[in-house]
């Protein structure tokens, strides 16, 4: 009998210890993990702690009843729901921290680790972290794409290149069941789940969206259900034309749903996705990011109210309208307040580095080739120009070298290094009937061919659709292949890639700025 209080305390400690991020809007803290089928209500506004402060998820339609809701129920056959990989606490994506936590708490039995795409390859042995290393190390989900590709209307694409598997640590691309030479030839690539929030920006058309894509002259896709041109900014390779088509394929693939989503389920999913916003709302060092008179860009309400399809690479709209209030703040003599002021000034400087700091952008496919020249002296916001998100307003795939060699992060190969990677490596050879890739030639090595697996175009090899910048603090790692484990590595990648020569202060300012979005 005397042991009961201790058992209660022990249970509480285990709970706290197993979930580093906590839902803190309730009177007590609970695990932030949202379990499919839990049937709980998601409040209209809910804040989750993360390493930088907290992120707030805003449901503009009010409290969301998740019982019976297709986004939250395990409607497939593997126990997953949409929410499995689009966790509210993680800005509607999923961080590698959360993934590792689920492995630890469930001993790898959570449906998140389903063999279909939660393993490096479905036929790898159960229960071993090694079988899930790409998910556990980099937060990557396996994406199997048919080869050669087909257009959304089902017509065949004649690829401009051949593809060979150079490195296949997962065994999936050489597999007789899942690989390029299987009865249903497919390429397995590994990508981060994208945030399922702030989607009005991702799906809106506006500046730069027309019948033909201004980056390559190819016809823009249309939504076959509405006949409307689409922005082609959804997914890393823009393969889905609408939230509906994305929901259908995700349900069939990731959730292993037998049959099709019903119209009611589709409507539930789309309605939820169209009303949910997520952004960092408070910061350990910057304080309340949404306080009255503060930067207009910050917080989830700003995202809900923002204009869509607007080019922000100008001083009338701004990508992230931060205002001037944080640029120079007076000191009070109060150490805590002054530290906050200093940090806010750093955030403002970081914004200015993002927006105004020029450097030579060179050899970036679908940026240097769109009429700006190679190189072009511009800033981060040249590419990351969409108002409020930092995505591309136009059809947004580009190659800045996150997956293509020689810029992509590779493990050093030497007698003195034990580091390895489980990412595949492909050799793509553009055929002689087309011009060589202007910056990479005819033979290109890549970890992920990106858009080229959909379009079949040589010039699309390694091009990846830009992601939104919001909720970054809650969803490391970054880039489609998870190659930047934190914001500093993200900044360092760009500095290395474009020889920006950022000072230590500029790097830290950029990290601080990004951590508030």
């Amino acid at each position, binding site marked *: 009998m005397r042991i009961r209080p201790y058992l209660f305390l022990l249970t509480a400690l285990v709970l706290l210890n197993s979930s580093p991020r906590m839902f803190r809007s309730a009177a007590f803290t609970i695990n932030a993990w949202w379990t499919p089928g839990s049937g709980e209500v998601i409040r209209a506004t809910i804040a989750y702690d993360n390493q930088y402060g907290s992120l707030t998820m805003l449901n503009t339609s009010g409290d969301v009843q998740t019982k019976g809701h297709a986004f939250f129920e395990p409607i497939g056959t593997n126990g997953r729901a949409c929410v499995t990989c689009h966790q509210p606490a993680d800005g509607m994506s999923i961080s590698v921290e959360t993934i590792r936590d689920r492995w630890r708490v469930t001993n790898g039995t959570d449906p998140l680790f389903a063999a279909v795409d939660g393993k490096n390859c479905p036929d790898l042995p159960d229960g071993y972290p090694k079988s899930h290393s790409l998910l556990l190390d980099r937060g990557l989900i396996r994406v199997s794409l048919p080869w050669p590709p087909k*257009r959304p209307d089902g017509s065949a694409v004649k690829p401009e290149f051949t593809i060979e598997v150079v490195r296949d640590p997962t065994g999936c691309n050489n597999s007789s069941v899942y690989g390029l030479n299987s009865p249903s030839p497919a390429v397995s690539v590994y990508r981060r789940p994208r945030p399922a929030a702030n989607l009005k920006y991702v799906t809106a058309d506006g500046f730069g969206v*027309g*019948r*033909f*894509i*201004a*980056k*390559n*002259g*190819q*016809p823009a896709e*249309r939504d076959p259900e509405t006949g409307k041109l689409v922005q082609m900014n959804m997914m890393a390779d823009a393969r889905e034309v609408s939230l509906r088509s994305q929901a259908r394929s995700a349900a069939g693939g990731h959730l292993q749903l037998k049959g099709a989503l019903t119209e009611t389920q589709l409507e539930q999913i789309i309605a939820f996705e169209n009303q949910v916003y997520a952004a960092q709302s408070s910061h350990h060092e910057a304080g309340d990011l949404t306080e009255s008179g503060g930067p207009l860009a910050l917080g989830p309400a700003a995202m809900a109210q923002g204009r869509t399809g607007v080019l922000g*690479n*100008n*001083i*009338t*709209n*701004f990508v992230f309208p931060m205002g001037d209030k944080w640029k120079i703040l007076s000191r009070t003599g109060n150490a805590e307040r002054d530290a906050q002021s200093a940090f806010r000034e750093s955030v403002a400087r970081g914004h200015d580095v993002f*927006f*105004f700091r*020029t450097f*030579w952008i*060179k*050899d970036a496919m*679908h940026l*240097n*080739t*769109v*009429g*700006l*020249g*190679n*190189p*072009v*002296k*511009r*800033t981060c*916001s*040249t590419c990351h120009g969409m108002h409020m998100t930092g995505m591309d307003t136009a059809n947004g795939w580009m190659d800045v070298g996150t997956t293509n060699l020689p810029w992509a992060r590779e493990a050093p190969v030497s007698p003195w290094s034990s580091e390895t990677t489980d990412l595949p490596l492909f050799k793509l050879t553009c055929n002689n*009937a*087309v*011009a*060589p890739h*202007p*910056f990479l*030639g005819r033979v290109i090595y890549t970890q992920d061919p990106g858009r080229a697996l959909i379009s079949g175009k040589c010039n699309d090899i390694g091009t990846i659709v830009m992601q939104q910048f919001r909720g970054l603090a809650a969803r490391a790692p970054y880039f489609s292949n998870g190659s930047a484990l934190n914001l500093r590595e993200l900044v360092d990648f760009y500095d290395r890639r474009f020889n920006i020569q950022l000072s230590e202060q500029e790097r830290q300012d950029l990290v601080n700025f990004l951590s508030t979005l």
Partner: protein
Amino acid sequence: MKNNIARIALFVTLLMTLPRQGNSQEAQRKNFLSCPVVQDTKTVPCWLSEYKGELYYLGIQTDISAEFHPPYLGHKVLVEGIVSDEPRICGGVVLKPVVVSPMPEPDSSCNTILPAVDKYTVPFAPRPPGPSGGTLAFQAPRRAPAAEQASTGPREFSIYYDFDQPVTGRHAAVLSQIVDYAEKIEAKRIVVTSSPGATKLTDGNLLTEQSGIAEARADEITQLLKRAGLVKVDFQIASRREAEPADGNEDWRSRRTVVRVEP
């Protein structure tokens, strides 16, 4: 008699002058293949190219609304321009008008970025190297008069290419115009005619596009228009095997596809 002599003298003078003017204009044409060079400035960079010891100014960096699209370091550039009498810019003799075409094959020797120096400025730059003031650098071309826009008859659209290149992003606008017009007049037939290009260089050499490129371009245009929705239209495809004779005068016009949209 005196008047007649005077007229004859004037005629002879004119005859003597005309060829000179022609030669002079020809001498002002510069068609050459060379590396592009970037000359940085305090604002946007200038694009230059060197030919036979002379530096030529091609244009400046602006944005996608510009008529001048800068070439690529890492590639040679085909320059087709006329020497203007404007003062030098960024140290280069100004070519205006000028058409530049990045060559497809990479050339790592083309890698020169000259650092900014005080003596070179571009005060006429319509936008800075960073964010704009809220508008693109150049206004969209004025639309044709309303009467012409209202036309419902056959209309031809010309698509000009970079040397040895297929459709690129810069063609998105004209391709959209073709589809818009075809839909507007409910086109029954579209004739796609492509020609390979050739440019007579200033050194007398002839630069010709690869064989088969006209067929490839005609086929590409047809496929793109079909994919953009013109599926019920009867397409007729024609392509020339040989390039038109090049004389060094606006030879870039030979690299083209003409799309004739008919009701």
